[in-house]
């Protein structure tokens, strides 16, 4: 059952030598992906930020489809593909993108013959010490080839989202000039670059297995994506702690800290459980196991890499000193269950502007909009909720609704200094999320008063002025819509 990958030495000749890609010089397979992207403005959620260009690469997976990174095409307003040695830009659209995998499939809008691409073959093995090559374009759109060596295989967080992924770290002799650059081994696609550090000349790539997993999922509607179990854990190295949790197996097992509401783990795992085996693989006290293909890896790969949402996996655990066999159902992780969602894709967020009050839900994207030092710059109460209670809604559907700020107007004199305060009630009614506020708005017609956390008086709006003020605010601050709600309300 163990596949040993022999160390392959890439000779200069072996691209032409390799059989399936005999004629493929990648001129028709690698494209430059030129994206114009534009996010919504977090602090003025009714408007967008300045559009900005991004350049990366994609690789043909069919005559009209290209695989690239999700981060590259995130918030795109225009995607154009450019072939090697060509100045022509071919418009493309997104077929599917998944921020949990950082992958996307693009389709050429006009699939005429001259635009047709030559799909690449995926590699079928890759080892920790393989030599590989990297393709990218130079300034004149000629294909440039660089050498690289795989130096590490690990589970790490995606650069663009807080999800674990299998990453191959490479050391290269070229400066990688865009994400999505293909990495080849024996003329086959071994992976796509997702990050690169000029200083150390190292980059990380998503390997062929993840690309194949994604592609086969895209081909099988409905898209299932990558699995998650939904629990927090810690290594269990400390001998005192092992003794305390009555774990006798040497160097084995990790400690479950908490299960996320609504996750598969919450149905069967408990805090303080010690997981000895996951899906029949022994887990060591740091959370690693021996993968048949890639060697020693952190166990999240067993979830996101070797399984899919909907699968049920067997576990061997120690609970209260007793060994037990249980199962955990894997699901696709979703922001909806969290008290504070991440909104990693920077989707447009819901808001209400009423009497100059900007009301919205707290999100990871909102906090991070305060810049690199957001942990210092944002009110520590909100940061604390995010850092310690993000996954802990008291009840399903709970969110943190905030008065993000106040747009000065005569109606809100005396309230204009409020910023990033938590709203507990609207019109005297308890609220748990922004949908509640929308409902109250629908029932009551307007916002009459806001109650803020730890404040015993309400911010009251003069109803006789409100309608006029709203019109005035919309005009003055150029707000095309004073309220925005996604059509699919939770």
């Amino acid at each position, binding site marked *: 059952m163990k596949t040993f990958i022999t160390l392959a030495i890439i000779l200069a000749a072996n691209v032409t030598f390799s059989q399936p890609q005999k004629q493929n010089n990648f001129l028709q397979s690698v494209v430059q992906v030129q994206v114009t992207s534009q996010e919504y403005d977090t602090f003025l959620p009714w408007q967008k930020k300045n559009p900005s260009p991004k350049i990366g690469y994609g690789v043909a997976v069919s005559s009209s489809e290209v695989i690239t990174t999700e981060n590259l095409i995130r918030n795109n307003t225009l995607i154009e593909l450019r072939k090697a040695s060509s100045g022509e830009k071919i418009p493309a659209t997104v077929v599917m993108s998944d921020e949990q995998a950082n992958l996307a499939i693009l389709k050429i809008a006009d699939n005429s013959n001259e635009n047709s691409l030559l799909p690449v073959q995926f590699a079928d093995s890759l080892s920790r010490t393989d030599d590989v090559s990297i393709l990218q374009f130079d300034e004149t759109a000629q294909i440039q080839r660089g050498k690289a060596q795989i130096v590490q295989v690990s589970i790490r967080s995606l650069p663009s989202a807080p999800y674990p992924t299998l990453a191959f770290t490479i050391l290269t002799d070229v400066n990688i000039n865009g994400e999505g650059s293909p990495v080849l081994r024996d003329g086959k696609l071994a992976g796509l670059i997702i990050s690169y550090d000029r200083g150390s000349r190292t980059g990380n790539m998503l390997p062929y297995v993840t690309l194949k997993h994604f592609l086969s999922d895209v081909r099988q509607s409905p898209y299932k994506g990558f699995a998650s179990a939904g629990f927090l854990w810690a290594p269990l190295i400390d001998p*005192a702690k092992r003794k305390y949790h009555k774990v006798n197996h040497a160097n084995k097992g990790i400690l479950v800290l908490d299960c996320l509401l609504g996750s598969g783990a919450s149905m069967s795992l408990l805090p303080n459980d010690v997981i000895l085996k996951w899906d029949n693989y022994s887990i060591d006290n740091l959370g690693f196991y021996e993968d048949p293909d890639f060697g020693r890896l952190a166990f999240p790969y067993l979830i996101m890499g070797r399984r899919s949402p909907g699968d049920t996996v067997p576990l061997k655990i120690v609970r209260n000193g007793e060994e037990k066999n249980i199962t955990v159902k894997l699901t696709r992780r979703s922001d909806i269950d969290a008290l504070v969602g991440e909104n990693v894709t920077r989707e447009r967020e819901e808001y209400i502007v009423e009497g100059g009050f900007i009301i919205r839900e707290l999100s990871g994207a909102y906090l991070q909009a305060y810049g690199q030092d957001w*942990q210092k710059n944002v009110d520590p*109460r909100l940061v604390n909720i995010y850092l*310690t209670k993000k996954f802990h809604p008291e009840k399903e559907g709970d969110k943190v609704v905030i008065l993000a700020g106040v747009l000065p107007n005569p109606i809100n004199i005396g309230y204009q200094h409020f910023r990033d305060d938590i709203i507990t009630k609207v019109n005297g009614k308890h609220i748990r999320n922004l949908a509640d506020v929308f409902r109250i708005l629908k029932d009551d017609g307007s916002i009459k008063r806001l109650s803020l956390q730890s404040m015993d008086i309400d911010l*009251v709006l003069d109803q006789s002025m409100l309608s006029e003020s709203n019109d005035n605010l919309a005009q003055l601050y150029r707000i095309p819509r004073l309220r925005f709600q996604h059509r699919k309300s939770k």
Partner: protein
Amino acid sequence: MFAVCTISFLFTGVALSGETDLRESVVKIYITAQRPDYSMPWQSLPPGNGSGSGFIINKRRILTNAHVVSDIRFLQVQKDGDARRYPAKVAFIGHDCDLAVLTVEDPTFFEGTKAVRFSDSLPALNNEVTVLGYPTGGARLSITRGVVSRIDYSIYTHSGADQHLVLQVDAAINPGNSGGPIVFKNKVAGLAFQGLMFAENIGYGIPVPVIQHFLDDISDNKYDGYPELGAAYLETTNPALCRDLGMPPNKTGIVVYYLDPFGSAIGCLKPRDVLFSIDGYKIESDGTVLLNDNNVPFAELLERKQCGQSVVFKVWRDNTEIEVNVPLKISADPFAYRNIYDKLPEYYIFAGLIFSPLNRECLRAANRHSHDRNVNQLNYYSQYAKIDNLNKDRDEFVVLVRQLPHPVNTYTQSFLNGIVTAVNGINIRNLHDLKTAMTKPLNGFHVIKFAGMDDSLILDAVATVKANEEILLRYGVPSPEYFEIVK
């Protein structure tokens, strides 16, 4: 961001005859001070030498800044034209108003000196003032001159938390000026105490009303400090809010929305109370009162009060105007994080883990690692302790501030800067509780729980017994604990 630094002023000899007189009142203060080392709370940082200024007031006393004589190990004073340095003592110190009174045992020191007279009123803007003192740049008395450029209510950097009146002058204030007099028409109008970094010609003085408050306070031979009202309020500039509060249309005031459990007003004022007036002064809707033709924050009236006195508010409560008397008391608030002086840090070491009550030094040290989630939690707890009721079940927040590495505590790094909530099933109200709880292991383990953390710190009880002694010896710690003696 401006950094305000402590300093004080002096004149060179130009001058009115009055200033010549004042030369007999100004003294130079030589100090050796030593701060505790909060990262190793059982010992202190290297002692440092410095100097400041001061001046002689009645009853053979010297007035200077608290920051000049804080954490003092050795103290001498010297007068103009006398080479001798006289040992002195700190008789009273007010860290909240940055003032201190020194005494000199040797009566000969006061021969040929003269106590200053204080000005009866604040100088007006643009009045010319002179500043005397021993600033950096020379050894002898220095005099500088400028005008009063602003009188304001501002933060006193020594405590880092208190606000009082300040006198802003455009004369240069430099290190060493601290404690020197600011003179207006031959009388002392203030005491130079801080400057503003990265700004020019901005120096600050403590004006006479604040000095007088301090001297009045110590007249009973003890310093109580400024009372705190402890009421947070909102302006009532919004007409809809006024109507909602049922305020009569011709009335103005501010509305209380939060009462500090350690303040004077709790139990007297209530949330939703509208304060119409304070001691007969009408409060405007923005919280100011009209005082000597100036609109000043109503808190300035509280500035004049001593602990034990009262303040009377006209209050709108339940649609009725009532009078509420608030007796002002000393605020002993363990959740107000001021700069600490003249105190040794409390700590307790167990298994090489150093626990300490949360304080400003601990916050400062922790914030050097600003991206740590435990540090963020400390910041949250320090700012919202009372407002969000985080101090429920706590007399103080006990923090794991440091680890002295030893095999017994190898796996405890992730708990650093965590706030202890329970040890061995016992709720931790204070550092004493922690010490007691550590004597009661559960089934051979010590289990330490922290706020906001799912994981617990586990120690093998048997192993800690031996480790405790070893660690103290290895790291040269003379005592595993220091607790302040409760008076």
